[in-house]
């Protein structure tokens, strides 16, 4: 599939055309930061952004979603499962770390047994990634096997080469999206320029710690008191889990009023004290130390077991943690022998 190019000033019109038959999510600035929102016009989008404050995982895995609704009629119950009938979602301008986040969610929700709610959205979604030219001081995608301009998982991938973007056409879905467009084929020198931008960005962000073998090391250190020192300042607020592109824990509850109700799935966080409280009252993870240990091991020991790294190095947990609990620092302490912080 041939690479294409598009001038930066033509992107807004391109988006306007996409909006005709797709539901387009793109980064929009609001209150001084960026969020992925449904756009009504290409002019709302600002691609001159580092990353969105919240990861776009809520497009495929909403913060709250009705699994079914019910209605009580005399002695009957009528159950209604919502049908996914939105126009095709297009996530435009998503960063490689967030794309890898979606891949991690694929590994959770699209493997057997498939989650029909996630699948209904994912199967129709087209991902248009955007490579990073610059990283922020919380980024560490290269540490966890990613990179500022890696395109795996995207259907189309944009790289900034000055006045234009190079568009790598990676999948059939991506090609389909462009079929109505009259875009120029990319010239060889532009392809090279893009490759250079990608390489430069990758080199500029060296890995901060070696995570190879993390599963064995962390398992060995399960009862190490160093976890206590790492977790001591954590206030258990859950911001890290909510902003994380790969965190996917959820709670299911019913909400009802008089004769109607619904069962909803909502985000939950392993950092909340009652997350693992059992009906008997026993709570296996009753201290902050155990919960922090669980989060780090889930990402770097348990999940990699079967399904690849559960961290994409986006750095949101680093930037937004109210007490600056830096997961990179925690890994440095844990994955090297000795030397507590």
């Amino acid at each position: 599939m041939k690479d294409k190019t598009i001038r930066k000033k033509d992107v807004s019109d391109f988006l306007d055309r996409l909006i005709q038959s797709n539901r387009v999510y793109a980064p929009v600035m609001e209150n001084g930061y960026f969020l992925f929102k449904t756009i009504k016009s290409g002019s709302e989008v600002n691609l001159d952004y580092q990353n969105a404050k919240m990861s776009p995982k809520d497009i495929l895995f909403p913060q709250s979603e009705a699994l079914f609704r019910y209605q009580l009629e005399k002695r009957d119950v009528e159950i209604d499962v919502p049908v996914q009938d939105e126009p095709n979602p297009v996530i435009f301008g998503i960063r490689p770390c967030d794309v890898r986040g979606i891949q991690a969610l694929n590994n959770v929700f699209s493997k057997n047994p498939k989650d029909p709610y996630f699948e209904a959205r994912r199967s129709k979604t087209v991902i248009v990634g955007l490579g990073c030219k610059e990283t922020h001081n919380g980024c560490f995608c290269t540490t966890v096997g990613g990179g500022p301009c890696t395109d795996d998982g995207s259907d189309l991938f944009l790289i900034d080469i000055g006045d234009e973007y190079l568009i790598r056409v990676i999948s059939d879905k991506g090609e389909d999206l462009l079929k109505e467009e009259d875009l120029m084929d990319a010239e060889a020198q532009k392809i090279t320029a893009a490759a250079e931008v990608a390489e430069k960005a990758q080199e500029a962000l060296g890995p901060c710690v070696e995570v190879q073998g993390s599963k064995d090391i962390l398992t060995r250190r399960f009862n190490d008191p160093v976890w206590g020192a790492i977790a001591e300042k954590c206030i258990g607020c859950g911001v890290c889990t909510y902003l994380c592109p790969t965190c996917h824990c959820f709670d299911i509850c019913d909400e009802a009023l008089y004769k109607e109700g619904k069962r909803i799935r909502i985000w939950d966080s392993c950092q909340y004290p009652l997350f693992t409280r059992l009906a008997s009252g026993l709570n296996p993870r009753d201290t902050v130390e155990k919960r922090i240990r669980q989060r780090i091991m889930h990402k770097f020991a348990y999940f990699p077991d079967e399904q690849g790294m559960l961290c994409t190095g986006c750095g949101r947990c680093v930037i937004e943690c109210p007490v600056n609990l830096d997961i990179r620092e925690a890994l440095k302490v844990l994955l090297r022998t000795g030397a507590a912080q």
Partner: protein
Amino acid sequence: MEDQKMAEPKTAKWEPTIVAFLCNWCSYAGADLAGISRIQYPNNVRIIRVACSGQVNPWFILANIQQGIDGVLISGCHPGECHYLTGNYRARRKFALLKSLLQFVGLEEGRIHFTWVSASEGVRFARVIEKVTDIVRSLGPAKKMVKRI
């Protein structure tokens, strides 16, 4: 007292729903007295008997708002007459703050009411219900903070 309700023809016009939390010893007894004396008052109110106005948890009021109740009334014994001595004093402080806070966020001022009605004040009770119903009716159906399932 004129019975306005029976004179009006039945229409599909909206009528507010009002929930009243009445303390067992004074206000509820006052409402009872109104009933026994055949004093007519609007039938929009649904009465919930509580032990004391001090027992009323602010959550009761907020839950009502969420469920779309148009108006809430809490009524207790006059200060100094509480069956539990100080329950209504506690309630007085709590609800001064709650009413002020709810008004501050933009909830219409006339949705939540507090009053004192003693066991011998059947007429006063009826008048309170009339006044509250009129105020809430003029505000229209509850819209703010109502939760739709």
